[in-house]
Protein backbone atom coordinates (compact mmCIF):
# COMPACT_ATOMS: atom_id res chain seq x y z
CA UNK A 1 0.00 0.00 0.00
CA UNK A 2 1.21 3.47 -0.78
CA UNK A 3 1.59 5.66 2.25
CA UNK A 4 0.01 8.58 0.44
CA UNK A 5 -3.30 6.95 1.26
CA UNK A 6 -3.86 8.58 4.63
CA UNK A 7 -7.12 6.74 5.23
CA UNK A 8 -5.28 3.42 5.24
CA UNK A 9 -2.13 3.87 7.29
CA UNK A 10 0.37 1.09 6.81
CA UNK A 11 2.15 1.92 10.05
CA UNK A 12 0.00 0.99 13.04
CA UNK A 13 1.93 3.30 15.37
CA UNK A 14 0.77 6.40 13.51
CA UNK A 15 -2.72 7.50 14.38
CA UNK A 16 -4.34 4.09 14.79
CA UNK A 17 -8.01 4.22 15.75
CA UNK A 18 -8.91 3.63 19.39
CA UNK A 19 -8.90 -0.12 20.15
CA UNK A 20 -12.52 -0.11 21.18
CA UNK A 21 -13.59 0.75 17.63
CA UNK A 22 -11.55 -1.94 15.87
CA UNK A 23 -13.60 -4.83 14.59
CA UNK A 24 -11.33 -7.77 14.09
CA UNK A 25 -12.07 -11.24 12.80
CA UNK A 26 -11.73 -13.72 15.63
CA UNK A 27 -10.04 -17.01 14.91
CA UNK A 28 -9.64 -19.95 17.21
CA UNK A 29 -6.06 -21.07 17.87
CA UNK A 30 -7.20 -24.56 16.89
CA UNK A 31 -7.94 -23.34 13.38
CA UNK A 32 -4.54 -21.72 12.85
CA UNK A 33 -2.65 -24.82 14.00
CA UNK A 34 -0.73 -26.49 11.13
CA UNK A 35 -2.44 -29.72 10.04
CA UNK A 36 0.44 -32.10 10.99
CA UNK A 37 0.67 -30.53 14.43
CA UNK A 38 -3.08 -30.80 14.90
CA UNK A 39 -3.04 -34.45 13.89
CA UNK A 40 -0.05 -35.27 16.10
CA UNK A 41 -1.81 -33.56 18.97
CA UNK A 42 -4.91 -35.71 18.56
CA UNK A 43 -2.83 -38.89 18.41
CA UNK A 44 -0.93 -37.83 21.54
CA UNK A 45 -4.21 -37.23 23.40
CA UNK A 46 -5.52 -40.61 22.26
CA UNK A 47 -2.36 -42.42 23.44
CA UNK A 48 -2.43 -40.51 26.73
CA UNK A 49 -5.99 -41.64 27.43
CA UNK A 50 -5.02 -45.17 26.47
CA UNK A 51 -2.05 -45.05 28.84
CA UNK A 52 -4.22 -43.65 31.61
CA UNK A 53 -6.71 -46.49 31.23
CA UNK A 54 -3.83 -48.97 31.31
CA UNK A 55 -2.31 -47.42 34.44
CA UNK A 56 -5.65 -47.34 36.24
CA UNK A 57 -5.62 -51.15 36.10
CA UNK A 58 -9.35 -51.24 35.41
CA UNK A 59 -8.93 -53.12 32.14
CA UNK A 60 -7.01 -56.35 31.88
CA UNK A 61 -3.86 -56.14 29.69
CA UNK A 62 -5.17 -59.14 27.75
CA UNK A 63 -8.11 -57.07 26.58
CA UNK A 64 -6.22 -53.78 26.23
CA UNK A 65 -2.41 -54.03 26.11
CA UNK A 66 -0.38 -51.00 27.09
CA UNK A 67 0.75 -48.52 24.43
CA UNK A 68 4.37 -49.53 25.11
CA UNK A 69 3.61 -53.23 24.63
CA UNK A 70 1.71 -52.48 21.42
CA UNK A 71 4.56 -50.27 20.22
CA UNK A 72 7.08 -53.06 20.85
CA UNK A 73 4.88 -55.51 18.95
CA UNK A 74 4.60 -52.99 16.14
CA UNK A 75 8.39 -53.04 15.85
CA UNK A 76 8.61 -56.87 16.04
CA UNK A 77 5.96 -57.39 13.37
CA UNK A 78 7.42 -54.57 11.26
CA UNK A 79 10.90 -56.10 11.43
CA UNK A 80 9.50 -59.48 10.40
CA UNK A 81 7.62 -57.84 7.54
CA UNK A 82 10.71 -56.04 6.26
CA UNK A 83 13.07 -58.99 6.69
CA UNK A 84 10.81 -61.24 4.60
CA UNK A 85 9.56 -63.41 7.46
CA UNK A 86 6.17 -65.07 7.83
CA UNK A 87 4.41 -61.70 8.12
CA UNK A 88 5.87 -60.66 4.78
CA UNK A 89 4.69 -63.91 3.15
CA UNK A 90 1.20 -63.37 4.55
CA UNK A 91 1.30 -59.77 3.36
CA UNK A 92 2.12 -60.93 -0.16
CA UNK A 93 -0.82 -63.32 -0.18
CA UNK A 94 -3.27 -60.64 0.93
CA UNK A 95 -1.77 -58.03 -1.40
CA UNK A 96 -2.20 -60.47 -4.28
CA UNK A 97 -5.84 -61.01 -3.39
CA UNK A 98 -6.39 -57.28 -3.24
CA UNK A 99 -4.71 -56.61 -6.60
CA UNK A 100 -6.50 -59.43 -8.44
CA UNK A 101 -9.81 -58.65 -6.75
CA UNK A 102 -9.54 -54.96 -7.60
CA UNK A 103 -8.59 -55.67 -11.21
CA UNK A 104 -11.51 -58.05 -11.56
CA UNK A 105 -13.90 -55.57 -9.97
CA UNK A 106 -12.74 -52.82 -12.34
CA UNK A 107 -13.19 -54.96 -15.46
CA UNK A 108 -16.63 -56.25 -14.47
CA UNK A 109 -17.73 -52.98 -12.84
CA UNK A 110 -16.79 -50.81 -15.81
CA UNK A 111 -18.48 -53.18 -18.26
CA UNK A 112 -21.69 -53.29 -16.23
CA UNK A 113 -21.48 -49.55 -15.62
CA UNK A 114 -21.32 -48.81 -19.33
CA UNK A 115 -24.27 -51.12 -20.00
CA UNK A 116 -26.28 -49.41 -17.25
CA UNK A 117 -25.21 -45.86 -18.10
CA UNK A 118 -25.34 -46.08 -21.86
CA UNK A 119 -28.33 -48.25 -22.69
CA UNK A 120 -31.95 -47.77 -21.84
CA UNK A 121 -32.27 -51.51 -21.26
CA UNK A 122 -29.41 -51.43 -18.77
CA UNK A 123 -30.92 -48.55 -16.88
CA UNK A 124 -34.35 -50.18 -16.70
CA UNK A 125 -33.48 -53.84 -16.23
CA UNK A 126 -29.89 -54.21 -15.03
CA UNK A 127 -29.67 -51.32 -12.56
CA UNK A 128 -32.58 -52.41 -10.30
CA UNK A 129 -31.05 -55.88 -10.03
CA UNK A 130 -27.66 -54.42 -9.19
CA UNK A 131 -29.22 -52.23 -6.52
CA UNK A 132 -31.04 -55.27 -5.14
CA UNK A 133 -27.82 -57.29 -4.87
CA UNK A 134 -25.95 -54.28 -3.49
CA UNK A 135 -28.37 -53.99 -0.58
CA UNK A 136 -27.58 -57.55 0.48
CA UNK A 137 -24.80 -57.92 3.06
CA UNK A 138 -22.16 -59.08 0.60
CA UNK A 139 -19.95 -60.52 3.34
CA UNK A 140 -22.63 -63.15 3.84
CA UNK A 141 -21.67 -64.61 0.48
CA UNK A 142 -18.20 -65.56 1.77
CA UNK A 143 -19.12 -69.20 2.62
CA UNK A 144 -20.65 -69.54 -0.84
CA UNK A 145 -17.42 -68.46 -2.51
CA UNK A 146 -15.43 -70.81 -0.28
CA UNK A 147 -17.74 -73.67 -1.21
CA UNK A 148 -17.39 -72.84 -4.89
CA UNK A 149 -13.72 -71.94 -5.11
CA UNK A 150 -12.12 -73.69 -2.14
CA UNK A 151 -9.82 -72.46 0.62
CA UNK A 152 -7.19 -71.03 -1.72
CA UNK A 153 -6.70 -67.51 -2.96
CA UNK A 154 -9.53 -67.70 -5.53
CA UNK A 155 -12.38 -67.49 -3.02
CA UNK A 156 -10.83 -64.38 -1.41
CA UNK A 157 -10.28 -62.71 -4.77
CA UNK A 158 -13.90 -63.40 -5.65
CA UNK A 159 -15.24 -61.94 -2.41
CA UNK A 160 -12.95 -58.89 -2.66
CA UNK A 161 -14.13 -58.27 -6.23
CA UNK A 162 -17.75 -58.86 -5.27
CA UNK A 163 -17.60 -56.19 -2.57
CA UNK A 164 -15.81 -53.69 -4.85
CA UNK A 165 -17.89 -54.06 -8.02
CA UNK A 166 -20.95 -52.08 -6.94
CA UNK A 167 -19.44 -48.69 -6.22
CA UNK A 168 -17.63 -48.93 -9.56
CA UNK A 169 -20.85 -49.71 -11.46
CA UNK A 170 -22.61 -46.79 -9.81
CA UNK A 171 -19.65 -44.46 -10.44
CA UNK A 172 -19.41 -45.36 -14.12
CA UNK A 173 -23.16 -45.20 -14.70
CA UNK A 174 -23.44 -41.82 -12.99
CA UNK A 175 -20.35 -40.57 -14.79
CA UNK A 176 -21.79 -41.36 -18.19
CA UNK A 177 -24.60 -38.93 -17.42
CA UNK A 178 -22.20 -36.18 -16.34
CA UNK A 179 -21.66 -34.54 -19.75
CA UNK A 180 -24.02 -31.58 -20.02
CA UNK A 181 -26.75 -31.18 -22.60
CA UNK A 182 -24.91 -28.48 -24.54
CA UNK A 183 -21.82 -30.62 -25.04
CA UNK A 184 -23.98 -33.51 -26.24
CA UNK A 185 -25.72 -31.22 -28.69
CA UNK A 186 -22.35 -29.96 -29.89
CA UNK A 187 -21.25 -33.54 -30.52
CA UNK A 188 -24.42 -34.26 -32.43
CA UNK A 189 -23.99 -31.11 -34.49
CA UNK A 190 -20.52 -32.15 -35.60
CA UNK A 191 -21.92 -35.52 -36.64
CA UNK A 192 -20.35 -37.69 -33.93
CA UNK A 193 -21.47 -41.32 -33.79
CA UNK A 194 -22.70 -42.88 -30.57
CA UNK A 195 -19.35 -44.62 -30.09
CA UNK A 196 -17.45 -41.37 -30.70
CA UNK A 197 -19.69 -39.52 -28.27
CA UNK A 198 -19.09 -42.21 -25.66
CA UNK A 199 -15.34 -42.35 -26.13
CA UNK A 200 -14.55 -38.71 -26.70
CA UNK A 201 -17.18 -37.01 -24.51
CA UNK A 202 -19.05 -39.16 -22.02
CA UNK A 203 -16.17 -41.29 -20.73
CA UNK A 204 -13.73 -38.41 -20.14
CA UNK A 205 -16.50 -36.27 -18.65
CA UNK A 206 -17.44 -39.13 -16.33
CA UNK A 207 -13.93 -39.84 -15.03
CA UNK A 208 -14.38 -37.83 -11.80
CA UNK A 209 -17.43 -39.91 -10.81
CA UNK A 210 -15.67 -43.09 -11.90
CA UNK A 211 -12.77 -42.32 -9.59
CA UNK A 212 -15.10 -41.52 -6.71
CA UNK A 213 -16.56 -45.01 -7.12
CA UNK A 214 -13.08 -46.45 -7.44
CA UNK A 215 -11.98 -44.88 -4.14
CA UNK A 216 -14.92 -46.43 -2.31
CA UNK A 217 -14.13 -49.75 -4.04
CA UNK A 218 -10.45 -49.53 -3.02
CA UNK A 219 -11.50 -49.55 0.62
CA UNK A 220 -14.05 -52.31 0.09
CA UNK A 221 -11.64 -54.58 -1.72
CA UNK A 222 -9.28 -54.88 1.29
CA UNK A 223 -12.21 -55.49 3.62
CA UNK A 224 -13.48 -58.19 1.24
CA UNK A 225 -10.12 -59.94 1.06
CA UNK A 226 -9.68 -59.98 4.85
CA UNK A 227 -13.23 -61.19 5.45
CA UNK A 228 -12.60 -63.96 2.96
CA UNK A 229 -9.50 -64.94 4.92
CA UNK A 230 -11.34 -64.86 8.25
CA UNK A 231 -14.01 -67.17 6.93
CA UNK A 232 -12.09 -69.23 4.42
CA UNK A 233 -8.67 -69.70 5.98
CA UNK A 234 -5.62 -69.47 3.77
CA UNK A 235 -2.20 -67.99 4.47
CA UNK A 236 -2.94 -64.28 4.37
CA UNK A 237 -2.97 -61.45 6.87
CA UNK A 238 -6.49 -62.31 7.95
CA UNK A 239 -5.30 -65.69 9.11
CA UNK A 240 -2.47 -64.11 11.15
CA UNK A 241 -4.92 -61.75 12.82
CA UNK A 242 -7.33 -64.56 13.59
CA UNK A 243 -4.55 -66.73 15.04
CA UNK A 244 -3.19 -63.89 17.20
CA UNK A 245 -6.68 -63.07 18.44
CA UNK A 246 -7.39 -66.68 19.34
CA UNK A 247 -4.17 -66.65 21.42
CA UNK A 248 -5.41 -63.46 23.11
CA UNK A 249 -2.31 -61.65 21.81
CA UNK A 250 -4.17 -58.38 21.44
CA UNK A 251 -1.00 -56.32 21.01
CA UNK A 252 -0.09 -58.38 17.95
CA UNK A 253 -3.62 -58.03 16.57
CA UNK A 254 -3.28 -54.25 16.83
CA UNK A 255 0.12 -54.33 15.15
CA UNK A 256 -1.14 -56.52 12.31
CA UNK A 257 -4.17 -54.30 11.78
CA UNK A 258 -1.85 -51.31 11.57
CA UNK A 259 0.19 -52.88 8.77
CA UNK A 260 -2.94 -54.10 7.08
CA UNK A 261 -4.23 -50.54 7.01
CA UNK A 262 -1.08 -49.60 5.11
CA UNK A 263 -2.18 -51.99 2.38
CA UNK A 264 -5.55 -50.28 2.21
CA UNK A 265 -3.87 -46.88 2.18
CA UNK A 266 -1.55 -47.94 -0.65
CA UNK A 267 -4.50 -49.17 -2.75
CA UNK A 268 -6.34 -45.92 -2.11
CA UNK A 269 -3.30 -43.87 -3.02
CA UNK A 270 -2.83 -45.73 -6.29
CA UNK A 271 -6.35 -44.64 -7.22
CA UNK A 272 -5.68 -41.05 -6.16
CA UNK A 273 -2.47 -40.94 -8.21
CA UNK A 274 -4.23 -42.37 -11.27
CA UNK A 275 -6.97 -39.80 -10.82
CA UNK A 276 -4.49 -36.93 -10.66
CA UNK A 277 -2.95 -38.09 -13.91
CA UNK A 278 -6.16 -38.70 -15.79
CA UNK A 279 -8.38 -35.95 -14.45
CA UNK A 280 -5.64 -33.32 -14.59
CA UNK A 281 -8.05 -30.84 -16.17
CA UNK A 282 -10.28 -30.76 -13.13
CA UNK A 283 -7.74 -28.91 -11.06
CA UNK A 284 -8.08 -25.95 -13.39
CA UNK A 285 -11.64 -25.71 -12.11
CA UNK A 286 -13.28 -26.41 -15.42
CA UNK A 287 -16.51 -28.28 -15.98
CA UNK A 288 -17.32 -30.52 -18.88
CA UNK A 289 -18.75 -28.03 -21.26
CA UNK A 290 -16.44 -25.30 -20.08
CA UNK A 291 -16.99 -21.73 -18.97
CA UNK A 292 -20.21 -22.22 -17.12
Amino acid at each position, binding site marked *: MSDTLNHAPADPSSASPPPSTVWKEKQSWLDVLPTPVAMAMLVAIFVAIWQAIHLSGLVSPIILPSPARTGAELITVGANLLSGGFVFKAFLVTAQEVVFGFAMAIVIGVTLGIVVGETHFGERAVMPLIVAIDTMPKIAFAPVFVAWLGFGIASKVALAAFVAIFPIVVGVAAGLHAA*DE*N*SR*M*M*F*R*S*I*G*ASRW*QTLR*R*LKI*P*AGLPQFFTGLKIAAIGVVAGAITGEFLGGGRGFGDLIRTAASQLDTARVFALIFYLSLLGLATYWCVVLAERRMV*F*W*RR*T*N*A*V*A*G*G*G*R
Partner: protein
Amino acid sequence: MTLSAQATAPAGHSPRPVYQLHGVNKSYAQRNVVALSNVNLTLHQGSFSSVIGSSGCGKSTLLKIMAGLQSPSEGSVMLDGKPVLGPREDIGMMFQQATLLPWLTTLENILLPIEIRSGRHSARAALDKAHTLLELVGLKGFEAVYPGELSGGMAQRAAICRMLIGEPKVILLDEPFSALDEINRDFMNMELQRICLQANATAFLVTHSIAEAVILSDVVHVMSPRPGRFVEAFEIDLLRPRTLDMMTTPEFGAYVHRIRDLLGKGALS
Protein backbone atom coordinates in the same frame (compact mmCIF):
# COMPACT_ATOMS: atom_id res chain seq x y z
CA MET B 1 -38.35 -0.61 -44.97
CA THR B 2 -40.21 -3.56 -43.56
CA LEU B 3 -40.23 -6.57 -45.80
CA SER B 4 -42.12 -9.78 -46.04
CA ALA B 5 -40.58 -12.74 -44.25
CA GLN B 6 -38.90 -13.75 -47.47
CA ALA B 7 -36.63 -10.75 -47.58
CA THR B 8 -34.84 -9.85 -50.75
CA ALA B 9 -31.09 -9.76 -50.56
CA PRO B 10 -29.61 -6.61 -49.08
CA ALA B 11 -27.81 -4.39 -51.52
CA GLY B 12 -24.12 -5.08 -51.94
CA HIS B 13 -24.40 -8.80 -51.31
CA SER B 14 -24.54 -11.59 -53.82
CA PRO B 15 -28.21 -12.51 -54.11
CA ARG B 16 -27.49 -16.24 -54.24
CA PRO B 17 -29.74 -17.94 -51.71
CA VAL B 18 -27.80 -20.37 -49.52
CA TYR B 19 -30.33 -21.53 -47.02
CA GLN B 20 -34.03 -21.86 -47.72
CA LEU B 21 -36.90 -22.88 -45.46
CA HIS B 22 -40.36 -23.41 -46.90
CA GLY B 23 -43.51 -23.91 -44.88
CA VAL B 24 -41.71 -25.35 -41.86
CA ASN B 25 -44.04 -26.51 -39.10
CA LYS B 26 -43.20 -28.18 -35.84
CA SER B 27 -45.72 -29.43 -33.35
CA TYR B 28 -45.39 -31.68 -30.37
CA ALA B 29 -48.37 -34.00 -30.46
CA GLN B 30 -48.24 -35.21 -26.85
CA ARG B 31 -48.16 -31.73 -25.39
CA ASN B 32 -50.44 -30.33 -28.06
CA VAL B 33 -48.02 -27.47 -28.69
CA VAL B 34 -47.38 -25.82 -32.02
CA ALA B 35 -43.76 -24.67 -31.77
CA LEU B 36 -43.43 -23.38 -35.32
CA SER B 37 -46.11 -22.46 -37.78
CA ASN B 38 -45.42 -21.97 -41.49
CA VAL B 39 -41.93 -20.51 -41.26
CA ASN B 40 -40.41 -19.31 -44.53
CA LEU B 41 -36.86 -18.03 -44.57
CA THR B 42 -34.12 -17.40 -47.09
CA LEU B 43 -30.52 -16.63 -46.18
CA HIS B 44 -28.36 -15.10 -48.90
CA GLN B 45 -24.67 -15.71 -49.36
CA GLY B 46 -22.64 -13.47 -47.08
CA SER B 47 -25.62 -11.98 -45.27
CA PHE B 48 -26.19 -11.77 -41.55
CA SER B 49 -29.73 -12.46 -40.39
CA SER B 50 -31.15 -12.75 -36.98
CA VAL B 51 -34.34 -13.85 -35.37
CA ILE B 52 -35.62 -12.18 -32.27
CA GLY B 53 -38.43 -13.12 -29.97
CA SER B 54 -39.28 -13.69 -26.35
CA SER B 55 -38.35 -16.90 -24.56
CA GLY B 56 -40.37 -19.88 -25.70
CA CYS B 57 -41.34 -18.43 -29.08
CA GLY B 58 -39.78 -21.37 -30.86
CA LYS B 59 -36.57 -19.75 -32.03
CA SER B 60 -34.36 -22.43 -30.50
CA THR B 61 -36.52 -25.12 -32.12
CA LEU B 62 -36.08 -23.32 -35.42
CA LEU B 63 -32.32 -23.30 -34.99
CA LYS B 64 -32.21 -26.99 -34.11
CA ILE B 65 -34.22 -27.80 -37.22
CA MET B 66 -31.89 -25.67 -39.33
CA ALA B 67 -28.89 -27.45 -37.80
CA GLY B 68 -30.38 -30.83 -38.58
CA LEU B 69 -30.58 -31.73 -34.90
CA GLN B 70 -34.36 -32.03 -35.00
CA SER B 71 -36.74 -32.84 -37.81
CA PRO B 72 -39.62 -30.53 -38.67
CA SER B 73 -43.12 -31.97 -38.55
CA GLU B 74 -43.59 -30.63 -42.05
CA GLY B 75 -41.78 -28.45 -44.51
CA SER B 76 -38.60 -28.32 -46.53
CA VAL B 77 -35.17 -27.22 -45.33
CA MET B 78 -32.64 -26.76 -48.11
CA LEU B 79 -28.99 -25.83 -47.75
CA ASP B 80 -27.04 -25.20 -50.90
CA GLY B 81 -29.61 -27.03 -52.99
CA LYS B 82 -29.64 -30.18 -50.85
CA PRO B 83 -32.21 -31.00 -48.19
CA VAL B 84 -31.05 -30.96 -44.57
CA LEU B 85 -31.88 -34.36 -43.12
CA GLY B 86 -29.41 -34.49 -40.22
CA PRO B 87 -26.26 -32.79 -38.94
CA ARG B 88 -24.09 -31.67 -41.83
CA GLU B 89 -20.49 -30.74 -42.33
CA ASP B 90 -21.38 -27.46 -44.06
CA ILE B 91 -23.28 -26.18 -41.03
CA GLY B 92 -21.32 -24.54 -38.23
CA MET B 93 -22.96 -24.06 -34.88
CA MET B 94 -22.28 -22.11 -31.76
CA PHE B 95 -24.04 -22.31 -28.43
CA GLN B 96 -24.61 -20.16 -25.37
CA GLN B 97 -21.78 -22.00 -23.65
CA ALA B 98 -18.46 -22.46 -25.35
CA THR B 99 -18.79 -26.24 -24.76
CA LEU B 100 -15.05 -26.72 -25.05
CA LEU B 101 -13.83 -30.05 -23.70
CA PRO B 102 -11.71 -29.27 -20.63
CA TRP B 103 -9.40 -32.27 -21.20
CA LEU B 104 -8.33 -31.08 -24.64
CA THR B 105 -6.09 -28.12 -25.40
CA THR B 106 -7.52 -25.17 -27.28
CA LEU B 107 -5.97 -26.44 -30.50
CA GLU B 108 -7.30 -29.98 -30.00
CA ASN B 109 -10.74 -28.54 -29.25
CA ILE B 110 -10.72 -26.57 -32.47
CA LEU B 111 -9.69 -29.61 -34.51
CA LEU B 112 -12.29 -31.84 -32.84
CA PRO B 113 -14.97 -31.56 -35.58
CA ILE B 114 -12.42 -32.56 -38.25
CA GLU B 115 -11.16 -35.41 -36.12
CA ILE B 116 -14.67 -36.71 -35.44
CA ARG B 117 -15.67 -36.55 -39.09
CA SER B 118 -12.50 -37.58 -40.88
CA GLY B 119 -10.07 -38.94 -38.30
CA ARG B 120 -6.75 -37.93 -36.81
CA HIS B 121 -4.93 -37.79 -40.10
CA SER B 122 -7.23 -35.13 -41.51
CA ALA B 123 -7.04 -33.23 -38.22
CA ARG B 124 -3.26 -33.04 -38.57
CA ALA B 125 -3.68 -31.84 -42.13
CA ALA B 126 -5.93 -29.03 -40.86
CA LEU B 127 -3.34 -27.75 -38.36
CA ASP B 128 -2.37 -24.79 -40.54
CA LYS B 129 -5.97 -23.77 -40.92
CA ALA B 130 -6.48 -23.98 -37.16
CA HIS B 131 -3.50 -21.71 -36.57
CA THR B 132 -4.84 -19.21 -39.11
CA LEU B 133 -8.23 -19.22 -37.39
CA LEU B 134 -6.67 -18.74 -33.96
CA GLU B 135 -4.86 -15.73 -35.34
CA LEU B 136 -8.09 -14.44 -36.88
CA VAL B 137 -9.86 -14.43 -33.50
CA GLY B 138 -6.82 -13.18 -31.60
CA LEU B 139 -5.99 -16.37 -29.72
CA LYS B 140 -2.52 -16.84 -31.14
CA GLY B 141 -0.25 -18.27 -28.46
CA PHE B 142 -3.08 -20.06 -26.65
CA GLU B 143 -2.86 -23.27 -28.73
CA ALA B 144 -1.59 -25.46 -25.89
CA VAL B 145 -3.69 -23.88 -23.14
CA TYR B 146 -6.53 -25.86 -21.58
CA PRO B 147 -10.00 -24.27 -21.60
CA GLY B 148 -10.05 -23.99 -17.81
CA GLU B 149 -7.46 -21.26 -18.12
CA LEU B 150 -9.36 -19.27 -20.75
CA SER B 151 -11.73 -16.45 -19.85
CA GLY B 152 -15.36 -16.66 -20.97
CA GLY B 153 -14.73 -14.42 -23.97
CA MET B 154 -11.61 -16.32 -24.99
CA ALA B 155 -13.48 -19.62 -24.73
CA GLN B 156 -16.16 -18.28 -27.08
CA ARG B 157 -13.45 -17.17 -29.51
CA ALA B 158 -12.10 -20.71 -29.49
CA ALA B 159 -15.68 -21.93 -30.09
CA ILE B 160 -15.82 -19.61 -33.12
CA CYS B 161 -12.67 -21.27 -34.47
CA ARG B 162 -14.14 -24.73 -33.91
CA MET B 163 -17.27 -23.65 -35.76
CA LEU B 164 -15.30 -22.26 -38.72
CA ILE B 165 -12.71 -25.03 -39.06
CA GLY B 166 -14.97 -27.13 -41.30
CA GLU B 167 -15.52 -24.13 -43.61
CA PRO B 168 -19.30 -24.19 -43.15
CA LYS B 169 -21.60 -22.63 -45.75
CA VAL B 170 -23.80 -21.26 -43.01
CA ILE B 171 -23.17 -20.54 -39.36
CA LEU B 172 -25.92 -20.84 -36.79
CA LEU B 173 -25.52 -18.88 -33.58
CA ASP B 174 -27.65 -19.66 -30.53
CA GLU B 175 -27.30 -16.59 -28.29
CA PRO B 176 -23.55 -17.09 -28.45
CA PHE B 177 -22.48 -14.35 -26.06
CA SER B 178 -25.41 -14.20 -23.68
CA ALA B 179 -23.34 -15.79 -20.91
CA LEU B 180 -20.80 -12.94 -21.11
CA ASP B 181 -21.07 -9.60 -19.33
CA GLU B 182 -22.32 -6.67 -21.38
CA ILE B 183 -18.92 -5.07 -21.94
CA ASN B 184 -17.47 -8.31 -23.29
CA ARG B 185 -20.62 -9.06 -25.25
CA ASP B 186 -20.50 -5.78 -27.19
CA PHE B 187 -16.85 -6.37 -27.93
CA MET B 188 -17.40 -9.97 -29.02
CA ASN B 189 -20.27 -8.92 -31.27
CA MET B 190 -17.95 -6.54 -33.09
CA GLU B 191 -15.38 -9.32 -33.34
CA LEU B 192 -18.05 -11.62 -34.73
CA GLN B 193 -18.89 -9.04 -37.39
CA ARG B 194 -15.24 -8.68 -38.32
CA ILE B 195 -14.76 -12.44 -38.57
CA CYS B 196 -17.94 -12.90 -40.61
CA LEU B 197 -16.99 -10.13 -43.03
CA GLN B 198 -13.49 -11.50 -43.37
CA ALA B 199 -14.72 -15.05 -43.98
CA ASN B 200 -17.71 -13.86 -46.06
CA ALA B 201 -19.84 -16.13 -43.89
CA THR B 202 -23.59 -16.51 -44.09
CA ALA B 203 -24.79 -16.20 -40.53
CA PHE B 204 -28.02 -16.72 -38.67
CA LEU B 205 -28.30 -15.52 -35.10
CA VAL B 206 -30.90 -16.29 -32.49
CA THR B 207 -31.09 -13.69 -29.76
CA HIS B 208 -33.40 -11.92 -27.36
CA SER B 209 -31.44 -8.69 -27.40
CA ILE B 210 -32.91 -6.16 -29.83
CA ALA B 211 -29.79 -4.01 -29.85
CA GLU B 212 -27.58 -7.01 -30.60
CA ALA B 213 -29.84 -8.11 -33.45
CA VAL B 214 -29.91 -4.62 -35.01
CA ILE B 215 -26.20 -3.86 -34.76
CA LEU B 216 -25.17 -7.20 -36.29
CA SER B 217 -27.80 -7.96 -38.89
CA ASP B 218 -28.74 -7.14 -42.44
CA VAL B 219 -32.19 -8.51 -41.75
CA VAL B 220 -33.94 -8.96 -38.40
CA HIS B 221 -36.87 -11.38 -38.29
CA VAL B 222 -39.33 -10.90 -35.48
CA MET B 223 -40.98 -13.99 -34.06
CA SER B 224 -44.14 -14.25 -32.10
CA PRO B 225 -44.99 -17.12 -29.76
CA ARG B 226 -47.84 -19.64 -29.60
CA PRO B 227 -47.64 -20.68 -32.36
CA GLY B 228 -44.07 -19.66 -33.18
CA ARG B 229 -44.19 -17.70 -36.43
CA PHE B 230 -42.40 -14.92 -38.29
CA VAL B 231 -44.43 -11.74 -38.05
CA GLU B 232 -42.18 -9.23 -39.74
CA ALA B 233 -38.70 -8.74 -41.19
CA PHE B 234 -36.73 -5.53 -40.88
CA GLU B 235 -33.95 -4.73 -43.26
CA ILE B 236 -31.27 -2.87 -41.33
CA ASP B 237 -29.81 -0.24 -43.58
CA LEU B 238 -26.73 0.75 -41.61
CA LEU B 239 -23.25 0.93 -43.10
CA ARG B 240 -20.72 -1.90 -42.78
CA PRO B 241 -18.60 -2.32 -40.85
CA ARG B 242 -20.86 -1.39 -37.99
CA THR B 243 -19.38 0.18 -34.90
CA LEU B 244 -20.59 0.36 -31.32
CA ASP B 245 -20.90 4.14 -31.76
CA MET B 246 -23.73 3.52 -34.22
CA MET B 247 -25.79 2.34 -31.28
CA THR B 248 -26.23 5.96 -30.22
CA THR B 249 -27.44 7.22 -33.64
CA PRO B 250 -31.10 8.10 -34.22
CA GLU B 251 -31.36 5.55 -37.08
CA PHE B 252 -30.31 2.76 -34.76
CA GLY B 253 -32.72 3.99 -32.12
CA ALA B 254 -35.55 4.04 -34.67
CA TYR B 255 -34.98 0.40 -35.60
CA VAL B 256 -34.84 -0.65 -31.98
CA HIS B 257 -37.97 1.32 -31.25
CA ARG B 258 -39.97 -0.25 -34.08
CA ILE B 259 -38.90 -3.78 -33.22
CA ARG B 260 -39.66 -3.28 -29.54
CA ASP B 261 -43.03 -1.86 -30.50
CA LEU B 262 -43.83 -4.93 -32.53
CA LEU B 263 -42.63 -7.31 -29.81
CA GLY B 264 -44.71 -5.42 -27.27
CA LYS B 265 -47.82 -5.86 -29.39
CA GLY B 266 -47.05 -9.54 -29.80
CA ALA B 267 -46.84 -10.00 -26.08
CA LEU B 268 -50.26 -8.44 -25.58
CA SER B 269 -52.07 -10.51 -28.18
